[in-house]
C-alpha cells in the first residue's frame, strides 16, 4: 500500500516546524514517529498535502525536573519510557503503560506526544495523562498555551490542538507527598488494541488520599477521566470500602460498546476490577515511595 502523494519537510528546529504549520494549517499533518499516522496514510484515511516530520528534530525528548514540574518531552519514544529506571516514584505508571503499547518494534519508533495527539480512544497515553492530571503544552508561532489533559480529548481522533499548534511537552506537578500509579491492560494479544485498560494515580497525605486520578482506555469515544470515582477517594482513608466504591463509580463512567473484543457488560466489569487492582498497586507504590 502506498500513501497518496504529499510534500515532505523535515524541519531542523521547532520554530521552523511552527512556521511551516502556520502557513499550511489544516493542509499539513505533523508526524513524530509515524506509527499511527503512516498506517492511516497507507489506508488513505489521511491525505495531507504536506507532511511535517518532526521526528528527526533535536530536543523535546526525555524527562526533566524543574520549578516544581516534571516534564516529559513530546518526542520521547515509548521504549525510552519503558526502560527508564530513574523516574520519580510518582511516575511509576509510565514504564508500566509503555510496556503494553503495541509491540517492541513499534515502541522503538513511536512517541508519547504523537500518540496523545493521535487521540485514539484505545490509546494508552491518553488515560495516563488523564490519571496524572497532566498539563499538555502546545506551541504555535503565536506562543505557548497550556491545555489541561481533561480538556484535551474532544472526540475520537480529535483534540483541542489548533491547526497551527504542536504538542511539545507533557507536564506533571512534582509531588512532595507519597504518590504512585499503576496501569492495567487487557489485550487479546501483543500488538492488539486494549480490550480495556485503566490507569490510576494516588497521592497520600497522613494516611488519607489527597489526590486521585483514574483514566479509562477503550471504553468510550475518548479516553475517559473517571471524575466521580476520583472525587470519592479524596479525603478518605483508602480502605477496601473506599476502593470498591471508586471502582463501582469508574465502571459507571465507562461507556463501552460490545464488539469482537467482548461485550459491553464484560468490559464495564473489567474497568471495575482494574480500578480496584490498580488502586491497591498504586497505594502500595505510594507507601513504598515514602519509605
Amino acid at each position, binding site marked *: 500500500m502506498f500513501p*497518496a*502523494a504529499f510534500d515532505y519537510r*523535515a524541519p531542523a528546529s521547532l520554530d521552523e516546524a511552527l512556521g511551516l504549520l502556520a502557513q499550511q494549517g489544516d493542509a499539513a499533518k505533523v508526524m513524530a514517529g*509515524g506509527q499511527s499516522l503512516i498506517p492511516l496514510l497507507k489506508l488513505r484515511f489521511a491525505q495531507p498535502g504536506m*507532511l511535517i516530520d518532526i521526528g528527526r528534530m533535536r530536543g523535546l525528548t526525555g524527562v526533566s525536573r524543574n520549578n516544581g514540574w516534571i516534564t516529559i518531552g513530546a518526542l520521547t519514544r515509548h521504549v525510552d519510557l519503558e526502560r527508564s529506571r530513574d523516574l520519580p516514584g510518582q511516575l511509576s505508571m509510565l514504564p508500566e503503560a509503555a510496556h503494553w503499547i*503495541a*509491540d517492541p518494534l513499534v515502541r*522503538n*519508533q513511536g512517541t508519547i506526544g504523537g500518540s496523545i495527539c493521535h487521540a485514539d480512544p484505545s490509546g494508552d497515553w491518553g488515560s495516563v495523562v488523564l490519571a496524572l492530571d497532566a498539563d499538555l503544552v502546545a506551541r504555535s508561532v503565536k506562543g505557548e498555551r497550556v491545555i489541561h489533559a481533561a480538556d484535551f480529548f474532544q472526540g475520537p481522533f480529535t483534540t483541542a490542538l489548533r491547526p497551527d499548534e504542536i504538542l511539545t511537552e507533557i507536564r506533571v506537578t512534582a509531588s512532595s507527598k507519597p504518590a504512585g500509579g499503576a496501569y492495567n491492560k487487557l489485550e487479546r494479544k501483543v500488538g492488539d488494541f486494549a480490550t480495556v485498560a485503566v490507569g490510576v494515580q494516588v497521592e497520600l497525605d497522613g494516611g488519607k488520599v489527597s489526590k486521585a486520578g483514574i483514566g479509562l482506555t477503550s471504553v468510550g469515544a475518548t479516553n475517559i477521566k473517571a471524575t466521580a470515582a476520583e472525587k470519592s477517594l479524596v479525603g478518605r482513608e483508602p480502605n477496601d470500602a473506599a476502593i470498591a466504591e471508586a471502582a463501582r463509580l469508574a465502571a459507571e463512567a465507562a461507556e463501552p460498546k460490545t464488539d469482537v473484543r467482548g461485550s459491553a457488560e464484560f468490559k464495564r466489569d473489567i474497568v471495575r476490577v482494574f480500578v480496584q487492582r490498580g488502586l491497591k498497586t498504586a497505594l502500595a507504590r505510594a507507601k513504598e515511595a515514602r519509605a
Partner: protein
Amino acid sequence: MKVSMKVNGVERGGDIEPRVLLVDFLRTNLAQTGTHIGCDTTSCGACTVLLDGEPVKSCTLLAVQVDGRNITTVEGLASGSTLSPMQAGFHEEHGLQCGFCTPGMMLVGTALLERNPDPTEDEIRWAISGNICRCTGYMNIVKAIQHAAKAQAAAQAKISETVAVAGGE
C-alpha cells in the same frame, strides 16, 4: 527527494518520492529482497530491519525518514560465507520452516543480544512478540536465540582467555 543512508555499512541512496516506504525502497530500488512484506499493516514484523541497531517495521517508515541513518537488513548479518551466531543458531535449532518471518526474527534476536547478552526465555519471548511466525510455534525460534546467546558467550570467553594468555606472556 534525495536521500542517502547506510544499508549494511554501504552508502546507498537515490532520488525518491517521499511516500515510498522503506521496505519498498530496500526491495525495489536496492533489490535487497531479504526484507519481506507480510501484512503491510504494522502487525507481523516480516519487514523488520534494524534502524541504528534497533528493530523497527520498515513497512511503517518512509524511506525519507531514515535519511542519514544506518539500516541493517538480513543481508547484513553474515560476513562473507560465515553465518552470524544468530543465523547459525536458527540453522542448528531448526528455527524456521517456511522462512518468511526468519529475517525479522534473526534481526530482533541480534538486537536483543546486543543489549542483553544473556536473556531469560521470558525476555526472548517478549523481544519477539512483535514478530509473527505461522509455522514453528516459536519453540525453536526461542531455542535458536538461546543457541546464539550461548555461542556468543563462549566466543567472548575465548577472546578473554586469549587476551589473558597474551597478557601473561
